[in-house]
């Protein structure tokens, strides 16, 4: 398992520019998917507005490292600010919304995602509205200039590994068990003395933080942000990464990210039928494997046990 990121880097370094960019995108979606998975997979709450946190991260970088306000803060600092703002947004959204369950929660989070996008679209003085913010600074980490797709490959692999380790530990912690209890039977969890609102809020905030980090990296990669990148479809894609890959399983999420980025790219040749074929493929996957491609049980802990047993 430890070899996987190394393999990705080794393969990635020798790839031409186009496939390398796609690989970067897969990694970015894997990170976002693992973040969203905390809420959707572990706590069992459907969040259809995840893109809002991603947008907050991206715009944080765009505003603090561009000619827009002539601010050029260092990348790491903005990473922390973006993550913090996203977490704050997660908590602020969570407080009123987490009383809701199921479909109602999905609807309100969807609305939140749209609100953030509409704000970005209309706060012209700040965000340039639909024109977006261009000429964003190059990222740099301790003097290392992160600009080419290979640089981003290193950065994204590193972040993906950190995210993976983090969500794995979270899942195995007492908090992870409390989230599982909420997912299984919220009323019984309440009766067991679990502060259900509290743990859901933590889940929301953590997941939002990872979304914010993803957004900052995205903005530094594209060096351009506009509201177009943060539509409802983006939220839906991330939910699909989780659901198709495997609810509650980071391995599944990585596989899901691979498929959901690669398949549309491969279908580019059949532009007219692309959406149709993609849709059919999704329906088939869900019909054949309703629990996702890799089931919850076969997660990191299962894998670690298998390795130890050998």
């Amino acid at each position: 398992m430890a070899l996987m990121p190394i393999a990705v880097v080794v393969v990635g370094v020798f790839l031409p520019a186009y496939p390398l960019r796609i690989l970067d995108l897969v990694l970015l979606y894997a990170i976002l998917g693992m973040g969203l998975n905390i809420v959707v997979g572990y706590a069992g709450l459907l969040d259809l507005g995840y893109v809002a946190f991603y947008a907050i991260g991206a715009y944080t970088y765009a505003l603090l490292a561009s000619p827009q306000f002539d601010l050029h803060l260092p990348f790491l600092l903005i990473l922390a600010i973006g993550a913090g703002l996203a977490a704050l947004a997660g908590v602020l959204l969570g407080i009123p919304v987490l009383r809701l369950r199921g479909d109602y929660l999905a609807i309100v989070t969807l609305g939140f995602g749209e609100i953030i996008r509409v704000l970005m679209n209309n706060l012209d003085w700040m965000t340039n509205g639909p024109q977006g913010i261009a000429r964003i600074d190059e990222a740099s980490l301790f003097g290392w200039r992160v600009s080419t797709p290979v640089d981003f490959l290193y950065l994204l692999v590193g972040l993906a590994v950190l995210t993976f380790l983090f969500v794995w530990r979270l899942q195995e912690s007492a908090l992870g068990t409390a989230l599982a209890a909420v997912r299984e039977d919220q009323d019984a969890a309440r009766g067991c003395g679990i502060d259900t609102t509290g743990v859901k809020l933590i889940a929301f905030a953590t997941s939002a933080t990872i979304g914010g980090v993803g957004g900052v990296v995205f903005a530094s990669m594209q060096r351009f942000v506009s509201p177009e990148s943060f539509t409802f479809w983006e939220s839906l894609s991330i939910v699909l990464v989780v659901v198709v890959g495997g609810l509650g399983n980071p391995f599944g999420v990585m596989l899901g990210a691979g498929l959901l980025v690669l398949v549309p790219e491969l279908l580019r040749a059949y532009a007219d039928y692309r959406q149709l074929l993609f849709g059919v493929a999704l329906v088939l996957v869900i019909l054949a494997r309703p629990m996702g491609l890799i089931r919850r049980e076969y997660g990191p802990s299962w894998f670690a046990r298998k390795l130890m047993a050998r």
Partner: protein
Amino acid sequence: MHGVSLELFAGEVVCIIGPNGAGKTTLLRTVSGLCRPIAGRIAFKGEPVQGAKPFQMARRGLGHCPEGRRVFQHLSVEENLIAGFLPGRGKSRAELFEEVYSLFPMLGERRTQSASRLSGGQQQMLAVARALMGNPELLLLDEPSLGLAPIVIHQIFEIVIRLAERGVSIILVEQNVDLSFEIADFIYAFEHGRVHCAGPADTLRGDERVRDLYLPRVA
């Protein structure tokens, strides 16, 4: 529920009996904070606690084992117990695991099994064990005999008695009147959200009012 007044002293077993819809479960849910009382007072260890949230009640030392077991089906036995564990209640998780597994050796043998693979009686034991993981001073048991074979009911009640001997106070809701009289110190019989009659188990045994509750005489 109206005008219900109920008292319990440390280390006592109190049984609440009564027909369906009498308000037994509602009473337990109100005590543990799952339902909010419109009026009235609830005191626990001498402190007023009405309006407290369920997790606050649990931290004060109240365990609630809900009606219909409600174990977390897709989690393992051990994960179910971890979900019930509360830090800061005087005992470590390892100590409580040991205690619970010695009380229910069957659960120890099935630690890694999913709760859905347990029989009804085993699930009930798991539900009781989960409530014990909070190291409660007061345990609320809502119909632990529901849908179980008599022999299994017997096993569960033996454990209830052992818990009481260790000094855990217990409020038990039961439909099984005979069993209730066997283990309770004090009995409350409910009907239509009111206390129909109450008294120490010994004095209330054979009382006509209890029989009337289930078999009203035709006037």
